[in-house]
Each structure stands twice: as structure tokens, then as C-alpha cells.
């Protein structure tokens, strides 16, 4: 029984946006991490989405169209080189006193953060509106 239309896709999109938010948070948190598990500077991570068929639908009778959900297709690394700064006191500095910094740019991450939060908001609005639709349909039989 699926009384509220569109919720399946919306729920998956909310899940996906949560993951993107997690990755953005990870990028911002590691903006100054010069050493990861392999001893290299942190590399910025990028989330990509893909759509998957959630429900074949009933195309022949025309009652419902196939439904596609969103899912995370992968979290990939951004391999552009980061800044190199002169800081000879730093424990991760090389023999010339240069430190390899992560390739995270705070300004870009903030933009990603806002995009992610707005996308989450949009999906919440879809959930609210479709719930409202179902609720209004239930008032058809009400008197006056």
C-alpha cells in the first residue's frame, strides 16, 4: 500500500543528500590534514549519484510509470595537486621545508554544502506536498 505518492524516490534522494553532506563535512574537516593513512596529504572527495530502477511499474495498463530512485554511484577522489607551502617547522615538511597541503578549497566546499542543503530541502518539500495531497484526498467524503 503506497498512499503517499512519490515518497520512495524522495526518501532515496534524502538518503543520497545525507551522504553528500557527510562527504562535504569530511572534506571541510580535513582541509588541513597533511597526512592520511598512507602518509599523503588528504585528497578531496566527490560524491556522484546514479538512478536505479526501483519499481517496474505497470506500463501496459498505464496505471504507473517505472520508478527510478537515486543512489550513490561512488565516492571518488579529486586528484588535482594541492597547494605547497613553505613551513620548515612542520613535521610533514620535506627536506626543502615545503609542506603538501590538501586540495580542499573551503569556498568550494561551502558552495557544495549549500547545494546539498537546498537539495535536501527541496526533497523535504516534495514529501510535505505529497502528504498534503493524500490528506486532502481523504477529505473528499467530509460533510461541508
Amino acid at each position, binding site marked *: *500500500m503506497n*498512499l*503517499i505518492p512519490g*515518497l520512495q524516490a*524522495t*526518501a532515496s534522494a*534524502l*538518503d543520497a543528500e*545525507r551522504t553528500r553532506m557527510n562527504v562535504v563535512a569530511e572534506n571541510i574537516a580535513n582541509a588541513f590534514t597533511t597526512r592520511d593513512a598512507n602518509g599523503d596529504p588528504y585528497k578531496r572527495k566527490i560524491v556522484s549519484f546514479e538512478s536505479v530502477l526501483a519499481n517496474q511499474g505497470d506500463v501496459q495498463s498505464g496505471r504507473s510509470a517505472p520508478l527510478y530512485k537515486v543512489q550513490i554511484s561512488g565516492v571518488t577522489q579529486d586528484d588535482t595537486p594541492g597547494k605547497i607551502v613553505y613551513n620548515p617547522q612542520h613535521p610533514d615538511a620535506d627536506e626543502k621545508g615545503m609542506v603538501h597541503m590538501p586540495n580542499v578549497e573551503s569556498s568550494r566546499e561551502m558552495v557544495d554544502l549549500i547545494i546539498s542543503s537546498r537539495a535536501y530541502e527541496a526533497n*523535504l518539500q516534495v*514529501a510535505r506536498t505529497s*502528504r498534503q495531497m*493524500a*490528506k486532502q484526498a*481523504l477529505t473528499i*467524503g467530509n460533510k461541508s
Partner: protein
Amino acid sequence: MSFINSLQGMGGNLFGSSKAIPGMDKDLKGMLEGALGGEGKQGEGGGMDVSALMNNFSVDKLQQTAKNQMERMGIDTSGASETGRSIFAELPQMSGGGGGDSFASMLTGLVNSVDAKSKASEQAAQDLMLGKSDNIHQAMISMQEASISFDLLVQVRNKLVDSFKELSRMQA
């Protein structure tokens, strides 16, 4: 949705059983159509009968579930449950004989699925509060689903009670 169809079917079935009372067909038909929002027309000729329906239909189960739901929502159920019981208790005496239980099983199915949704939402909220899950939106969505499907159940029940009231008013 199939509920409207079932309501139509029920209109016809109630009507069918009234043929035992001569000359009442037209009045009852009009009344039932009024009570069911003018949807009784297509259901004519269904082979079901109120008494059979009410015998097969487990009234206690519906009431228990509805009561549980209401208690969870913090609604006082003492009055409501009494009304429901007396209505369902009176119905079987209205006419006799017949078979078929598709409407009863449909209604039981509705009650079961509403109950399942409510349990799922409760579980999601509990998991969230206990820290087993961090899926706020999923919990909220399942709560909304539970609330909407309960509203639907209430509306179906209201329609049933309405049509019964129409019937009982006719006898007076």
C-alpha cells in the same frame, strides 16, 4: 484504489439483501447511494449479504487495533469503542443467509496493513531514539505514512457507520 470499488460492492450487497423486504428496494437503494456518496450503482448483483459479512468479519480485531492505535495517539477510546460494538452487534440481526467474504477480507487487510505501518513507524522512531539508526527522514516518512493510512481507515469506518445509520433510521 480498490477501496472505492469495494464500497460500491458493499452498497450493492446491502441492497441485494434488502430484496427480502418487498417494495423496499428503491428506497434502500436511494438511501445507500446517498450514504455511500452515490457510488452504489455499480455494485448491484454482488452476492454478499450483511449478516454473512458481519459474521465473517472479525469485529473485535478491528476494534482492538483501532483502540490500540487511538491509545497510542492518546485519544480516549471508552465511548468510541462502545458505539462501534453496539453497531456491529445489531447488524447481523437485520437479514439472514448468504455467502462471500471479499469485503470482510478487504477490510481486515486494510486494518492489518494500517497496523503494520504503525508498527513500522514505531520501530523506526524507537531505533532513532535508541541510536540504532540515524535516519531521521525515514522515521518521519514512516510516521506520516502511518498517520495517513490510519486516516484512511477512519474514513472507511465513518462511511460504514453512516450507511448503517441510514439503514437503522429507515426501520423507525
